[in-house]
């Protein structure tokens, strides 16, 4: 009889399209339900590997303790104006979380992530169609000598030409800054007084995948912008329409 692989419990299973459970009233869910996840193979722009590492010098925490805290309070460590609505079951394989991200110019991006993989020392989030990035990001902790080291590593391409333009015009730098700040916030929370984040950004593939330019049809930023423009109309119509459930 074949034995189950050691990693079997850590991977999401049987996910074809994303499904969300209960959505918080303040969250906007426009671009998640029914979407497929996308990896670097499906994205459009140059492929980047970003690695942010910080040593938790002076903090007496084991890698599993770090990951337990990180999973439980993921939103807490994000920079301001960005919201991660954790699934009710927490960060566990196959769960879907909703994200409302602040973009430059006070624009918003409503999207989500799938928890692709999660074990005691790491977890990985994968993006859906329409997200700014096609790829995954892994949050991990490991013991190195007597210090626990936290790492954030993303492998990503932008999803379409519009996002790629934004990335070239500063989005790439902002995205890196986002994860550096996250690593700093986590380290401070765990007791590191002056965290020093080592950041490496490598262009793994300079080619743009023009065959994927059509991804722009699902651009979540555009859809969120159009939805935002319609807010006054929805507000005026509210007394005359029955409250609906599902996507808000």
């Amino acid at each position, binding site marked *: 009889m074949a034995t189950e*692989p050691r990693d*079997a419990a*850590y991977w999401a299973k049987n996910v074809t399209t994303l499904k969300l459970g209960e959505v918080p009233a303040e969250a906007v869910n426009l671009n998640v339900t029914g979407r497929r996840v996308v990896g670097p*193979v499906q994205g459009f722009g140059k*492929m980047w590997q970003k690695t942010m590492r910080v040593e938790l010098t002076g903090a007496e925490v084991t890698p599993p303790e770090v990951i337990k805290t990180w999973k439980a309070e993921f939103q807490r460590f994000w920079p301001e104006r960005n919201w991660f609505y954790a699934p009710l079951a927490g960060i566990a394989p196959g769960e879907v979380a909703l994200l409302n991200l602040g973009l430059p110019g006070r624009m918003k991006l409503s999207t989500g992530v799938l928890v692709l*993989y999660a074990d005691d020392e790491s977890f990985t989030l*994968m993006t859906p169609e329409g997200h700014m990035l096609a790829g995954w990001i*892994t949050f991990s902790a490991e013991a190195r000598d007597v210090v626990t080291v936290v790492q954030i590593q993303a492998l990503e391409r932008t999803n379409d030409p519009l996002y790629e333009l934004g990335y070239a015009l500063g989005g790439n730098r902002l995205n890196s800054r986002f994860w550096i700040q996250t690593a700093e916030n986590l380290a401070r929370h765990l007791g590191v007084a002056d965290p020093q984040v080592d950041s490496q950004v490598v262009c*793994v593939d300079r080619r743009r995948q023009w065959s994927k330019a059509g991804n722009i049809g699902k651009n979540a930023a555009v859809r969120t912008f159009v939805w935002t423009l319609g807010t006054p109309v929805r507000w005026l119509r509210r007394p005359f329409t029955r409250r609906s459930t599902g996507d808000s």
Partner: protein
Amino acid sequence: MTEGSLITEVRELSSRASVIDLKGDVTASAEKALADAYTRASGKFTRTIVLNFSGLEYMNSGGIGMLVTLLVRANRQRQRLVAFGLNEHYRQIFELTRLDEAIGIFDTEAEAFAEADAP
């Protein structure tokens, strides 16, 4: 060659195709072992690299990321990557991460070789 807990062996199937046998754990710590195996498998006329996963015992998301970077490297050399020997669990992971859209998956070495040797 052993790196971390991944053992790799390289076999030449033909002048145009080589196999990399993978045994053990495919994680980010096996990056050097896999990169070295790819270099050994990749001759002047190699057009297809066949990955044999029948000895795969463990893979995490770091391992999947490593396969993506290997794919980029192969594409740059105008080579194809194909795979065989994946059990149902790992096949599902390839489908979930949509890696199967870029790496052809076959049941047996003979099927992968037929694809590899196709003009």
